[in-house]
């Protein structure tokens, strides 16, 4: 399992799906571990009831069907598909509405979905997903990129309430890929994912949604900085180590 995750850290991010399916066929016994620990680019389906799009992931899957957060129905239809308790479903509906506003404000478009389910130790888990396509062909208002995708996955484990507080453990992954292609500079592609974790004990006085929302908001802001640093900072640093920019070489030229 450790070796499998090691491989996933090295394979080109654009081949994540191929790499994962190869590992699944080699290690069928670890399939559920692999599926939950390896993040894949998010896929989308359309809800048959409302026509609204929703995001697919491990957490709304049962057999080969996926539950829509809008109608709570499985696509393709599945009898006896797992459903959250009525109380949790209520929170899920609310979370979806609010998260859609959040997504609209920060992302100006895109698709979001929130899924919740009970866990084994009296708490629950919530998964917040955002998908935004920024490519030229997408409906986004600014299509500068040949290809550009942003997938964010936030999984929050919420512990049972004790003395008015609860423990929240947030694991977030952002997958970002972008490609530009033009005559003068060829193809330029940056892709990958970063993952971060945050733990907090918070009072539940204002409700779980507020706490979870603020954690996600803080995390996304931190991750934007990390992405900026890693994608555009670290890889540029590497390029400049390999072949330092012209000014430096020119400065050295008179000596040679």
């Amino acid at each position: 399992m450790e070796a499998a995750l090691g491989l996933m850290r090295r394979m080109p991010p654009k081949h994540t799906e191929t790499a994962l399916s190869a590992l699944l066929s080699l290690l069928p016994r670890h399939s559920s571990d692999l599926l939950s620990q390896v993040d894949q680019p998010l896929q989308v389906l359309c809800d048959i009831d409302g026509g609204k799009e929703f995001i697919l992931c491990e957490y709304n899957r049962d057999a080969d069907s996926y539950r829509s957060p809008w109608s709570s129905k499985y696509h393709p239809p599945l009898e006896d598909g797992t459903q959250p308790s009525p109380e949790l479903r209520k929170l899920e509906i609310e979370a979806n509405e609010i998260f859609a506003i959040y997504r609209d404000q920060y992302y100006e478009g895109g698709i979001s979905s929130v899924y919740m389910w009970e866990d084994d130790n009296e708490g629950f888990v919530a998964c917040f997903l955002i998908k935004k396509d920024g490519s030229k062909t997408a409906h986004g208002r600014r299509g500068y990129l040949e290809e550009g995708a942003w997938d964010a996955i936030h999984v929050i484990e919420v512990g049972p309430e004790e003395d008015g507080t609860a423990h929240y453990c947030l694991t977030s992954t952002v997958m970002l890929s972008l490609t530009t292609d033009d005559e003068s500079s060829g193809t330029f592609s940056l892709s990958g994912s970063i993952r971060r974790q945050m733990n907090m004990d918070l009072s539940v006085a204002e409700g779980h949604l507020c706490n979870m929302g603020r954690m996600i908001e803080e995390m996304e802001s931190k991750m934007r900085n990390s992405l900026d640093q890693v994608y555009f900072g670290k890889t540029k640093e590497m390029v400049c180590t390999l072949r330092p920019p012209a000014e430096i070489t020119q400065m050295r030229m008179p000596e040679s």
Partner: protein
Amino acid sequence: MAEEDAPEVELSGEQKKEIAKWFLLHSPGGEIQYVAKDVRSVLDDDGAYGEAASEAFPAYNKAQMICLDMPRGMGEVLITSFGELEENQFLDPRTAQVGIVDHVKQVCTDARPATDEELPSPYIEEFRCALDAEVLKYVGEAYPKGVCSVYSTKGKDVEGPGSDFELAVVIQAARNSPQNFCTGSWRSVWNIEFKDDIQILELRGKMQVGAHYFEEGNVQLDTKHECKDSTIFQSPEDCAISIASIIRHHETEYLGSLEASYTNLPDNTFKVTIYFPRIYGESFQLLAPFSPGITRCSSVLQEISPKNLELKSEITIR
């Protein structure tokens, strides 16, 4: 996904080998040994692994154009298809030595002098050697850890003027710092056609840059650029000088365009994908729908504060 429910079917040795090869061939520059260790462990079949390694390593070494030290201080040899004499024998044209290579261990185990048949004619060697000297000078200036080689790829036995021939320039620079969780490589290949009849040299260049950063994530840069240029056929020394200056010009220009991408992309990317709170400063935090009081219903958002209305209108204008 069906995998979980499917009955456990044992993969055949052949299938395992193909999977192992796929992983090995997709290793980022300088990381195949790490990948090999993990592949071997997930495969749990040393026979299949051995076969995969013996097929994947040579292809990977040549694609990455790795550089190996020859024994007895005889310099370095680049593993490229241009210098490949046999599967495990690679010519270093500068020293006229042939490195005997163990692909899987990625070491040069022995070296021998090249035979006359393996080397170009004196006429071609004059062009090759002059170009090698110029390229070496350029690489020494431009790349802190660059390696280069010039091969005769076509018409190596041409004895004098009157026939076409071709040389190839290979430039490679790699960095590997596992302690900083990053690796990177620059590879460029230049094909130079010496067209005797029209007295013109035609150049085709291909540059590739890769970088991998894997601390708490996996981020990879992958760029590729091709270009063309030409110059006039002159004496070996003058040809060498103009070719090296064309290479320098295009590679410097390409680096400039990479830098421009880095300057423009963060802005474009984050604009395309998400709002940067930069626009609104810290105050945006307060407007987010998760703050108490505005969390309950979407229509409430518009009534909540004048600031939100301002924000809304800004969003619409943009």
